[in-house]
């Protein structure tokens, strides 16, 4: 559904993504992992065309995203920190987003109701707590029934009840055959929500397979320890490289 092809991205002199290749298939849920600065967020932003790659292309449903804006109506994006115009009310934000997509008439209001946002539609955004804003972001990501969901740290800042509500929603969407992409630092959450693991290290795909094979390869039963092993390996690879460089 999404093919990332030969993406190369530099920030200044730093290569963030090097000849990056990935395929995301519908019906799968991907855990996007990697240490800080490994290029996770850059990858997401490139898919959303918020960051423009130096070379390479991204295809969504077989179509290049270059010069294309319509494909984004198929993506529900939940940013890490959602900030909105201070003076806008929740209801206005919702109707604005709906306004932008006039072709979609059938809204998914599950989360709006579950989070109780429908009772505070006339609250201005600047009066909201961080958690409530996160709820608004989540509700917006799912509102237009997109085929692709990209969730950047979706549960950060949410209260436990809201976390459960959101997780259940994600699971339901996954079962409905959507493509879901999640980054998170909470490994238990990833294990619960995803079936594919992608580990990015220094701008390259270090691991990309199902969670099952990850456990097989690492010989660990638990997701979290498997990831920890993966991290060890990636660091070793790194030290090897540096040793070689010294020779």
């Amino acid at each position: 559904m999404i093919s990332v092809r030969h993406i190369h991205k530099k920030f200044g002199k730093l290569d963030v993504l090097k000849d990056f290749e990935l395929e995301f298939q519908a019906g799968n849920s991907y855990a996007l992992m990697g240490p800080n600065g490994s290029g996770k967020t850059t990858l997401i932003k490139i898919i959303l065309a918020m960051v423009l790659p130096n070379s390479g292309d991204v295809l969504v449903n077989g179509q290049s995203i270059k010069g294309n804006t319509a494909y984004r109506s198929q993506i529900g994006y939940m940013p890490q920190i959602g900030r909105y115009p201070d003076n806008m009310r929740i209801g206005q934000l919702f109707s604005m987003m709906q306004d932008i997509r006039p072709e979609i008439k059938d809204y998914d209001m599950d989360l709006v109701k579950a989070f109780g946002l429908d009772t505070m539609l006339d609250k201005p955004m600047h009066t909201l707590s961080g958690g409530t804003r996160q709820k608004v972001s989540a509700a917006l990501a799912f509102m237009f029934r997109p085929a692709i969901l990209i969730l950047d740290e979706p549960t950060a800042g949410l209260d436990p009840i809201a976390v459960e509500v959101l997780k259940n929603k994600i699971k339901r969407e996954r079962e409905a055959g959507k493509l879901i992409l999640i980054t998170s630092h909470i490994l238990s959450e990833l294990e619960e929500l995803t079936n594919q693991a992608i580990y990015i290290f220094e701008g390259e795909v270090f691991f990309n397979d199902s969670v099952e094979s990850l456990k097989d390869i690492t010989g660990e039963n638990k997701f979290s320890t498997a990831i920890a092993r993966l991290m060890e390996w990636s660091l070793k690879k790194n030290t090897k490289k540096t040793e070689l460089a010294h020779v």
Partner: protein
Amino acid sequence: MYKLLKYSLYDIVKSRFALLYTLFLVLVAISIYQVSEDMGKVSLSLLNIMLMIVPLIAAVFASTHFFNNLEFTELMLAQPVKRRDVFLSQFLAVAFVLSMALIVGFGVPMLIWGADVTILTLLGIGIGLSVIFAGLAFLASVMTRDKAKAIGISLSFWIYFSLVYDGFVLYLIYSLADYPLEKTTLGLVFLNPVDLGRIIMLMQLDISALMGYTGAFFQNFFGSFQGILISSGVLLLWMLWPSYFALRVFRKKDF
């Protein structure tokens, strides 16, 4: 585009800044009208406000607004809308609010106490300079990732156009005092929107003194239909090019 602009405008119109700025301008206008009885003095006092304060506020507000709205901009970029539309809605909203504050803030006192052509020209120049400096501030903002740096650059634009540039012109005039410089100075005036606005006002306020140096040259130029067309055209160009280049950078920018 229209929808985005509608929401950007709504947000900015309801912001505290729009209210405070308008209120500030109303107070300034009232105090100026109260202190001086005749229109000549009113226009002189307004001149300093329009040439100095208005561009300063436009520059600082536009760059602050750009960065305060950065997250919202990012949110919009993830939506199925064109980057151009996101940028233009932001810019036009800022330009609109700055202009409206001037029109309401000075317009209402003018309606009450009267205005002449000079004061209306001044209002037009104030609006022009607001748009120009908002454009320059947006250009500074898209070129950097740092709010403080962007405000700094916007302020340098302001200092450059209202102070440094004139120092340079004075130096040039001083060192080339023996040459006829009318055309050169006319050209130099076009390269600085603050000077252009100021000279248009001098043509109304200090025409007698200006005739002493340039003879009828400036008068013929700015008084003719062609001259008015050219000077408004140049002012319009100044209103367009910074935002045009800002848009070009914005379309290639990583968020």
